[in-house]
C-alpha cells in the first residue's frame, strides 16, 4: 500500500490515545462501582455476563477510526481492475498440418474452440478480429466491437497450405494500427494471440515483423502446438515440426509470453489465461473512498451494536 499524503498518517497516533482513554475509563468504572450487597445472587443469574462482548463495540469503533485516519492519507493499492478497452487480434495458423488429430478433434478444431471461449470472455468494450494464415495471410474478421463476427470467422476457418507466420502477424498489426482512440486521445492496449504448429516457410520473416510490433507498442503472445522438432509428411510437403525458438523470440521481443499446449485441454487453459490477462489489468488504484467507506461502516456498526446490546454509544 502506498500513500499520496503520507504525513497524514501522523493522525494514527489518535488510535493509541483513544485506546488509553478507554482503558482508563474501564479502570475508573471499577473504582466507582455501585454498591450491591446481593452480588452473589446476581452473579448466579448473570452467569458469564457480557464478558468480552462488551469490548466489541469500542473495538470496532477504534478500528473504524483507524480506517478513517488511514483514508486521510489517500492510500492506493495495486489491484486487478477490469480493463474496459482492449484491442485483440487472434492470429491462427491454418496450414495443412493443422488438420492433424494429435489435438482433439483436430489442431484447428481445438484452437477454434479455445479461441471462441476467449472471445466470449472479453469485456464488452473490447475490439477483436481474426487473421488466418497459410500460404498467405487473410483477414477473416476485421477488428470490431462485434464479437459475433469474430465467432463466425473462427467457425469458417479451414486448413490447407503453408505457414506464413510473418505475414499473419503483419496483417494483424495493420488492423491494430487503425484502432480507434478514445475521448482522451488514448489508444486501447493492443494484444495479438498468435497460434502456430510449424515454422515459417512463406512470406516475410517473422523476426522483422516482431520488431515492428514492438515499435508500435503491441504485445504479441504466441502459442505453439503440435510436434516439437519432428518432421511430418502431409500432402507431399515436408513440414518441419514446431519452431518454438522463433515463437519464443516473437513473444519476448514484444513483451509477450510463449506457451506450448500438448492437448486441447491445455490449449483451452492457455487461451483462457491470455483472455483474463486482457480483461484484467493490475494497476495502482487509489482506494481512499474504500478506506473511508470501511471506516464509516465500522463506526456505524459499533454504534448500532453498542446501542442495541448495551444501551449506549461505545
Amino acid at each position, binding site marked *: 500500500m502506498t500513500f499520496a499524503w503520507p504525513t497524514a498518517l501522523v493522525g494514527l497516533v489518535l488510535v493509541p490515545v483513544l485506546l488509553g482513554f478507554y482503558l482508563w475509563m474501564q479502570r475508573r468504572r*471499577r473504582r466507582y462501582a455501585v454498591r450491591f450487597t*446481593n452480588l452473589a445472587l446476581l452473579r448466579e443469574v448473570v452467569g458469564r455476563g457480557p464478558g468480552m462482548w*462488551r469490548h466489541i463495540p469500542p473495538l470496532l469503533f477504534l478500528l473504524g477510526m483507524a480506517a478513517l485516519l488511514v483514508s486521510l492519507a489517500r492510500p492506493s493499492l495495486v489491484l486487478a481492475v477490469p480493463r474496459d478497452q482492449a484491442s485483440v487480434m487472434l492470429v491462427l495458423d491454418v496450414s495443412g498440418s493443422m488438420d492433424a488429430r494429435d489435438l482433439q478433434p483436430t489442431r484447428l478444431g481445438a484452437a477454434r474452440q479455445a479461441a471462441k471461449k476467449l472471445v466470449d470472455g472479453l469485456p464488452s468494450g473490447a475490439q477483436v478480429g481474426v487473421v488466418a494464415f497459410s500460404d498467405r495471410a487473410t483477414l477473416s474478421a476485421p477488428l470490431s466491437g462485434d464479437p459475433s463476427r469474430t465467432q463466425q470467422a473462427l467457425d469458417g476457418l479451414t486448413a490447407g497450405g503453408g505457414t506464413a507466420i510473418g505475414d499473419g502477424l503483419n496483417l494483424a498489426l495493420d488492423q491494430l494500427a487503425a484502432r480507434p482512440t478514445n475521448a482522451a486521445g488514448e489508444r486501447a492496449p493492443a494484444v495479438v494471440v498468435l497460434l502456430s504448429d510449424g515454422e515459417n516457410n512463406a512470406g516475410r520473416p517473422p523476426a522483422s515483423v516482431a520488431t515492428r510490433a514492438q515499435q508500435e507498442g503491441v504485445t504479441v503472445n504466441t502459442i505453439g502446438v503440435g510436434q516439437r522438432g519432428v518432421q511430418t509428411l502431409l500432402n507431399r510437403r515436408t513440414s518441419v515440426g514446431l519452431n518454438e525458438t522463433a515463437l519464443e523470440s516473437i513473444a519476448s521481443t514484444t513483451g509477450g509470453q510463449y506457451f506450448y499446449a500438448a492437448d486441447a485441454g491445455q490449449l483451452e487453459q492457455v487461451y483462457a489465461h491470455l483472455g483474463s490477462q486482457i480483461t484484467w489489468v493490475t494497476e495502482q488504484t487509489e482506494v481512499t473512498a474504500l478506506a473511508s467507506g470501511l471506516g464509516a461502516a465500522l463506526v456505524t456498526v459499533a454504534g448500532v451494536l453498542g446501542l442495541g446490546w448495551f444501551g*449506549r454509544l461505545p
Partner: protein
Amino acid sequence: MRGALEAIRRLARRPSLIVVTSDFLVPDGWAEALRLLAQRHEVVAARLRDPRESDLPDVGLVTFEDPETGEQLTVNTSSKRLRERFAQAAAAQAERIKTSLTACGVDQVVLGTDEDTLPALAAFLDARRRRRGARWAGRRGPSAA
C-alpha cells in the same frame, strides 16, 4: 451471624424477646443456631431488604461491587431477560429465607431500607404483642445483627 446467635444463647439467661436484624443473606448456616435460640426465647427476624437490590434498573453497563468482599461484577442491565431472571431469583430467595425462618419457629417482619425502620419495627412488635397477650412485657434481649 451464627457466632453472634450462639453468643446470645449463652448470654441470655432468662427467656426474652430477641429481635434479629439482618438481611439473612449470610451463608454460614445460621438456621440451626436460630432454631436452638427460638426454643428458649421468643425470636423475631427483622429482615432488611433493599428494594433496589431485587429490581435492577435499565441503565446499560454497570459495575457492581460487593461491599463486604470487594468483588466486582460488570453487568448489562439493559437486558430485559436479565432483569426478569434476577427479579425471579430474588423473589425465590426471599421465599427460601421465609421458609427457613418459619421452620425455625421465627416470625419475620420485612423492613425496607427505603423506609424508616424503627417505627415499622415498633408497629410490628406492638401488633404482635396484642395478638399474643402481654406476656413479654417490654423485656427485649440484645439485638443480634
